[in-house]
């Protein structure tokens, strides 16, 4: 079973404070969709509304055609929601946690052995099945949480920052599990504050202060900055940054260790003139090359004041 998720003007206020405002997007069956933004952007509020645990104050969303505002209990049957503090029982073993969630979701006992085998194969938790969940590392706990969420084979999976605080190796394992589910037709909505991680999604919505600032594939978002980013190396990077930030043809200059990333206002900007200004200021440039924009660059450009040129048409 595969399901579509449609978000239609979804909004949530806390008193006068808008946490999420007028979100509109649709997620196709079998799509891996990212809800991306910093802390406080509205990611968790959005996922909680989609999971049917928080009522929208305006708008609605439908999971497989079922309204989260009018019929939240029925929505919950079709999906699994893994919150940031997923309810693992630390005093139960890995296997006992899986059993508990299988009971909770009414997974028939005849289907359980095959389900467990697959989840253990994905997660690598097989050798630890008799270990107490409380004694697992952070990355393993997340894998167990994900396994518990998947035990009833939901059509839609909602993951709230599943990789928060997880090291790069465990992060890759978690993503492999998620991609495996997507390949089988599961619709997955995942939130993350890591923009490098968002590049793994098919499409993403970028949230900023409760509003969507962009909705597209990572590649197309990155293409919006095509021809506008340069990386350069000099022996005097701080002096170079000072010159660049004062230059009218430079939108942004950021120092990463010893490398400077320079963002130009348009692809047609006269980069040669900027280089001349550096030379005139006595800064020798050792290396200068165009670079591809990261999603962080795109997010910065979208949320910086006065850079409307990147916004959705």
């Amino acid at each position, binding site marked *: 079973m595969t399901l579509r998720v449609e978000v239609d003007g979804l909004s949530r206020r806390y008193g006068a404070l808008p946490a999420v405002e007028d979100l509109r997007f649709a997620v196709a069956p079998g799509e891996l969709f990212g809800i991306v933004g910093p802390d406080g952007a509205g990611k968790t509020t959005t996922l909680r509304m989609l999971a049917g645990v928080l009522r929208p104050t305006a708008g609605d969303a439908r999971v497989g055609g079922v309204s989260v505002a009018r019929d939240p209990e029925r929505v919950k049957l079709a999906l699994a929601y893994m919150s940031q503090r997923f309810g693992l029982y630390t005093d139960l073993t890995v296997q006992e946690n899986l059993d508990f969630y299988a009971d909770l979701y009414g997974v028939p006992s005849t289907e359980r052995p095959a389900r467990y085998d697959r989840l253990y194969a994905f997660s690598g938790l097989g050798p630890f099945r008799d270990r107490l969940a409380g004694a697992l590392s952070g990355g393993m706990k997340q894998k167990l949480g994900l396994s518990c969420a998947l035990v009833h084979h939901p059509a839609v999976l909602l993951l709230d920052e599943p990789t928060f605080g997880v090291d790069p190796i465990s992060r890759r394992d978690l993503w492999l599990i998620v991609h495996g589910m997507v390949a089988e037709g599961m619709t997955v909505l995942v939130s993350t504050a890591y923009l490098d991680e968002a590049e793994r999604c098919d499409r993403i919505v970028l949230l900023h202060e409760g509003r969507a600032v962009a909705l597209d594939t990572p590649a197309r978002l990155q293409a919006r900055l095509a021809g506008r980013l340069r990386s350069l190396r000099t022996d005097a990077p701080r002096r170079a940054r000072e010159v660049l930030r004062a230059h009218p043809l430079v939108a942004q200059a950021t120092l990463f260790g010893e*490398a400077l990333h320079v963002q130009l206002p348009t692809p047609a900007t006269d980069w040669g003139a900027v280089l001349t200004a550096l030379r005139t200021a006595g800064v020798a440039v050792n290396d200068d090359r165009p670079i591809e924009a990261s999603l962080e660059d795109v997010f910065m450009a979208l949320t910086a004041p006065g850079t409307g040129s990147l916004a959705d048409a």
Partner: protein
Amino acid sequence: MPEAVVARDLTRLFGHFVAVDGVSFSVPRGEIFGFLGPNGAGKTTTIRMLTGLLPPTSGDAVVAGHDVRIAAHAVSNEIGYMSQLFSLYGDLTVEENIRLFGGLYGLRGARLAERRDWALEMANLVDRRRVLTRDLPLGWKQRLALGCATLHEPRILFLDEPTSGVDPASRRRFWDMIDGLAERGTTVLVSTHYMEEAEYCHRLALMNRGRLIALDRPATLRHSLGQPVLELLTDAPPRAVEALQGVEGVIEVGLFGRTVHVMPHDATAMAAALPGMLAAAGRRLERLRTIEPSLEDVFVALVKREGGAVLG
């Protein structure tokens, strides 16, 4: 003394568990030096030894000219420490937090007022000085925490995953502040497992299972494997990853969105062999190109080469 921190064969056991295993490095004054590694790699234990909180089992470290084994207190006056939890008081105003931390560091009277003004200015919080700290956005709290950690003008600053969860604009502002401190001679040691933070460091120490597995500039590390990454587009990417795992010549294979990243021992040979390997697994290769390895690619490849991360 040009070196702000020198660690020689630094080792720490907890019972039979070797948390830090013979780690040696030195950090010159004014450098931004990063520890990058998975959970349990020994980053925090190393920093706790350098700050004088935890005695080494063997080996030694000299921090700001003091041997950490015999002068832990002298070391602590010369260092600043900021953790990801910030340890700010939410029910105090910005200014009250600064006064509290200044007092803890022994600042009084005119000196405290001068440092308070400096911190408010540096953190761009002058207009918010009377705002309750809990009402500040995360990025602002983080700048306040940095201001508080540097009130006593420490020569060495330790940061533990300082910008996790912060929006990119705040993160860049934060690192501008860090760079300003480094420019004026403060030495900065950062521990992180986020590549986004690692990019801001002058040099990176990669740690795994208590050992230092690489130490270099980020740009040098990125090329240290001597091979590009192969990015391939194929039907059923997770199946393709399974088919390529553990194959001769493949250091590491992972999913990246709809693409598969293969880190090969020999890119040319692997690029030639891949179509056949995938066809044998019943997969179709739709596109293949070489891309520059990310810091994460390098990190994962080095950890795998070392025999994997700590499990459990």
